[in-house]
């Protein structure tokens, strides 16, 4: 296991204060008989993008869910040095975490504007950040979210969490199922957002990771097996294959 | 191997032996039974309690063991009961034939209803309420993976439960000397649900205990209210407490909260705790 302190030192990029915004200690998750997470520990630096990687089914999505309390778990979770593992999900979210789930989970029966007004009742689609990063959504404000394309729904899902001030964003496979052009668009948005808000990103798309991630945390068999700089990992094909196998997408643009 | 089987059957054999002997017991059990144990009042009460217990067991096959939340079990019980009385009185069939007719038609009904019910239930299991059921019973996908044909298992459960229910209805009519329209109601099915959960869903003794206690309480609690315990309480409270179903309903809510595994589940826990110390 790579020494985590040196990885964090390397991750203290210009603009970052070197501290961590989110810290997970000894996280265990048991789902009906199977021990999915067996003592996962890592920290998310207070700036930049941290990619959470691993083979299919290893527990990446479960980790994100466990952090915000949507999966039954034990362990310590600290958000900006404050313990949050005993709080209910809504309180954790309001404490400053934005969660973008796998499969987007927009409310299909609600319009784009209504989806956003759930989080920002006064402005909805008129919020400045929507106009800045998602101009297409402004045009589609009255369109029912269920009729949007996958890429557009992903934008709604991202916009939702950007309407509130957050300390960290948990984003789960935002480019899944998207065409290369859309992957690039999502990557652009994520890079832009990461300038002000740290992101813990679950992704299978290696080129995307190479482009926008600063640090990586790799899971295998329910535990963290590697922590380090993203550039180093991606540059080492042998290490990549050893840790991630062939399940990582090599094509698909970034 | 043989000794294990007979050991398991031992409690049932003992209970049956005791029950068979009861009509010869002339003792009085004041408060618990009206009159002597082998008097007509007590025997009728015990007989009805046992029939209801049996019907509760038939419901447990469908709900407790297979996890299918049935709201229409009354259909099978009523079919058995009414078909028997109609066969006997309107068609003047001899008893054995009447019983066969009732059972036969009830089985047919079970197959038809089971078939339709299965279609609905498969889809229900995938809905939100169904996921809750999966939390109580074995996960259907897991069962399918293990090689069990879930369709056949469910249909079998429905038919077995229905036929047993119909049989219970037949005996019910015999014990009561006629068919009681109460067994056709949704309230009756819900009462069976309560009995099974009260005693412990998925457990044979649980369903029997729940059914027996429910009917016993329903029949005997009325006596209690007349006994004068409650005279000191205000009228409204007296009126409410004199309704056995009120007390049963309240007790049921408490059980659901604090002992969802039912009375037998509670008993099991106490036994385990006793062994541990």
């Amino acid at each position, binding site marked *: 296991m790579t020494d985590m302190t040196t990885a964090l030192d390397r991750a203290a990029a210009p603009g970052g204060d070197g501290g961590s915004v989110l810290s997970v200690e000894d996280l265990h998750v048991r789902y009906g008989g199977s021990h999915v997470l067996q003592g996962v520990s890592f920290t998310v630096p207070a700036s930049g993008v941290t990619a959470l990687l691993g083979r299919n089914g290893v527990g990446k999505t479960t980790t994100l869910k466990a952090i*915000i309390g*949507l999966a039954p778990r034990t362990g310590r979770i600290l958000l900006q040095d404050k313990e949050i593992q005993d709080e209910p*999900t*809504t309180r954790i*979210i*309001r404490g400053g975490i934005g*969660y973008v*789930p796998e499969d987007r*989970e927009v*409310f*299909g*029966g*609600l319009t784009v504007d*209504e*989806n956003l*007004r*759930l*989080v920002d*009742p006064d402005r909805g689609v008129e919020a400045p950040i929507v106009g800045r990063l998602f101009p297409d959504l402004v045009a589609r404000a009255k369109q029912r979210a269920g009729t949007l394309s996958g890429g557009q729904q992903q934008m709604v899902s991202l916009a*939702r969490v950007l309407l*509130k001030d957050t300390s960290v964003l948990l984003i789960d496979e935002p480019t899944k199922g998207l065409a290369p052009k859309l992957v690039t668009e999502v990557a652009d948005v994520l890079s832009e957002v990461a300038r002000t808000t740290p992101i813990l990103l679950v992704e299978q798309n290696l080129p995307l990771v190479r482009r926008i991630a600063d640090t990586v945390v790799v899971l295998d068999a329910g535990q963290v097996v590697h922590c380090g700089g993203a550039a180093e990992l991606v540059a080492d094909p042998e290490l990549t294959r050893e840790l991630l196998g062939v399940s990582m997408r090599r094509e698909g643009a970034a | 191997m043989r000794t294990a089987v007979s050991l398991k059957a031992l409690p049932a054999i003992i209970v049956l032996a005791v029950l068979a002997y009861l009509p010869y017991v002339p003792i009085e059990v004041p408060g618990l039974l009206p009159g002597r144990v082998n008097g007509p009042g007590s025997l009728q009460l015990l007989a009805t309690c046992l029939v209801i217990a049996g019907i509760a067991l038939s419901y447990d096959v469908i709900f407790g063991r297979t996890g299918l939340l049935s709201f229409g079990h009354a259909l099978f019980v009523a079919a058995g009961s009414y078909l028997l009385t109609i066969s006997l009185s309107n068609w003047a069939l001899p008893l054995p034939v009447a019983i066969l007719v009732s059972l036969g038609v009830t089985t047919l009904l079970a197959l038809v209803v089971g078939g*339709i019910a299965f*279609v*609905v239930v498969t*889809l*229900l299991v*995938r*809905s*939100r*309420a*169904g*996921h*809750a*059921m999966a*939390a*109580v019973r074995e996960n259907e996908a897991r069962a399918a993976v293990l090689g069990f044909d879930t369709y056949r298992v469910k249909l079998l459960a429905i038919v077995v439960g229905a036929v047993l229910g119909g049989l219970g209805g037949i005996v019910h009519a015999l014990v009561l000397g006629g068919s009681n329209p109460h067994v056709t109601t*949704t*309230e009756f099915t*819900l*009462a069976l*649900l*309560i009995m099974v*959960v009260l005693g412990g869903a998925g457990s044979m003794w649980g369903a029997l205990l729940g059914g027996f206690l429910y009917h016993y309480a329903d029949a005997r609690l009325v006596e209690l209210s007349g006994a004068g315990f409650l005279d000191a309480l205000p009228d*409204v409270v007296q*009126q*409410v*407490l*004199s*309704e*056995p*179903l*009120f007390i*049963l*309903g*309240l007790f*049921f*809510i408490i059980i*659901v*909260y604090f002992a*969802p595994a039912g009375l037998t589940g509670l008993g099991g826990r106490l036994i385990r705790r006793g062994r541990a110390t």
Partner: protein
Amino acid sequence: MTDFVLILVTGLGLGALYFLAASGLSIIYGLMGVLNFAHGAFMMAGSYAGFLTMGALPASLSVAARLAMAVLVALVVGAVIGFVVEVVLIRPLYRHHIQQVLVTVGLSLASVAAAQGIWGADPRTVEKPEWMASTTMLLGARLPNDRFLFIVVALAVFLGLQALLHYTRLGLIIRAGVENRTMVEALGINVHRTFTIVFALGGSAAALAGLLYSQYAGTVSPAQGGSLLIYAFIVVVIGGMGSLVGTAVAAVAVGLVQQLANFYAASGVGDLSVVLLLALVLLLRPTSMKGAHA
């Protein structure tokens, strides 16, 4: 033609009652996943609250005025009971769906028994305003006036609920929550408050349904809620759980089918036809049990 008008109005009138009974049930199940078996008890509470109010008010007031007061009292009583039941019995069992259902079954058993103990099992006659008890001639058909009131009330409730759902923040949260309650929580919105309000609203609607149903039947009894509840469930399943428009359409359909069958076949065939309709809908559209969320 006269037959058609008669069946239409009586069917719509009945459908109106079914809608009132089913609307709360539908939203409660759609949003919270709770099959509220105590809904019948809420209806019973409304009918008895109305009965007692009308009896308690001075006889110098007209029956219609006392009925109007009774409606207000029933609405408040229903809301309070819904609120208390949700906070005390349902909320502690959050995410334990089966236990929540069982608790409502126990509650319905206990409350019906309690009502029986206090007021007796026999139906008691309710006072009905003269206008409602009489009929109006329309296109040759003799139409009972109370049906018109039921239709107007149901329409008002429908429009009111639609407005709530589409123009208020509460309604937005309900619509989102019916689709995906977990995601609403994952956005930091406290659904528990919404649950309580929805249960209170459902209780209110149920109480109103119970009161109007007792006017329709001319009597009030502890068992009334139970019989209306079955139809409410059927309407909710046919209409799609969590969908208000679906519930409205289904309620009208059930009411009309029932009246048609009762009129042209025999009394009682109506009930059977409704069940057949339910079976048909379930077989043709299997997602009926899923609610609005796929």
